[in-house]
């Protein structure tokens, strides 16, 4: 566990490690290692990466991962919902509208094209769609408001 915590401390930004690395490692030598400490160090590293002036690329990557994950899990959620829905009962139209909005590419291809594919393909497709939306939003945000690095 101690080794894992030490590895996690390397996730801090280089500039931060240059300033605080030595004393932080001295502190890690003294604290009782545990999963709580590991999570705390990981959280600290993410927080410092977000605050770091060098991390604009990392912030964008982080946002893209969040958008892609959202697309993937929303798609997986709909897949699970439709797979487990009671076939005897009709599905409320609002559910289809919501599915259409949250899975736009799957909705359009299902409605206008005969393009059957598996759930995994739809999940990846939705993750890619959300990533694209995330990228566009990030670019628009950067254009209208420069990224802020401090709290």
């Amino acid at each position: 566990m101690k080794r894992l915590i030490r590895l996690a401390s390397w996730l801090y930004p280089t500039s931060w490690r240059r300033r605080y690395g030595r004393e932080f490692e001295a502190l890690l030598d003294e604290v009782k290692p545990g999963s709580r400490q590991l999570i705390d160090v990981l959280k600290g590293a993410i927080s410092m990466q977000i605050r770091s002036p060098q991390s604009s690329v990392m912030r964008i990557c982080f946002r893209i991962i969040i958008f892609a994950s959202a697309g993937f899990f929303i798609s997986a959620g709909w897949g699970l919902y439709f797979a487990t829905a009671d076939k005897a009962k009709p599905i409320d139209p609002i559910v289809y509208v919501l599915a259409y909005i949250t899975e736009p590419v799957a909705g359009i291809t299902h409605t206008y094209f005969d393009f059957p594919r598996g759930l995994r393909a739809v999940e990846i497709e939705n993750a890619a769609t959300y990533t694209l939306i995330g990228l566009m939003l990030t670019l628009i945000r950067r254009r209208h408001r420069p990224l802020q690095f401090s709290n």
Partner: protein
Amino acid sequence: MNDPNLLILASLADGDKHGYAIMADIKAFADVELGPGTLYGAITRLEERGFIRPVGTDDRRQPYRLTADGRRYLEEELAVLQSVVRVGFRRLGKA
């Protein structure tokens, strides 16, 4: 009360301390266990704001000292807290 910034300032109010000593002190007086990431996140912010400063040492463990600005900020925050505590107890009928 688990604002790490305030807890660290309160810990340093009675003298210089290094990271582990701050953690142990906060555990003793507030029963709050700050993790190393939370502690150093707060130390970074407090140093940037000029509320604490490192004290020269040869040791790997770096002690920190409360600055005049830090002391002023701590006094202001504690005054607000004191007022909240007073009003809270009065409204509970325990003052």
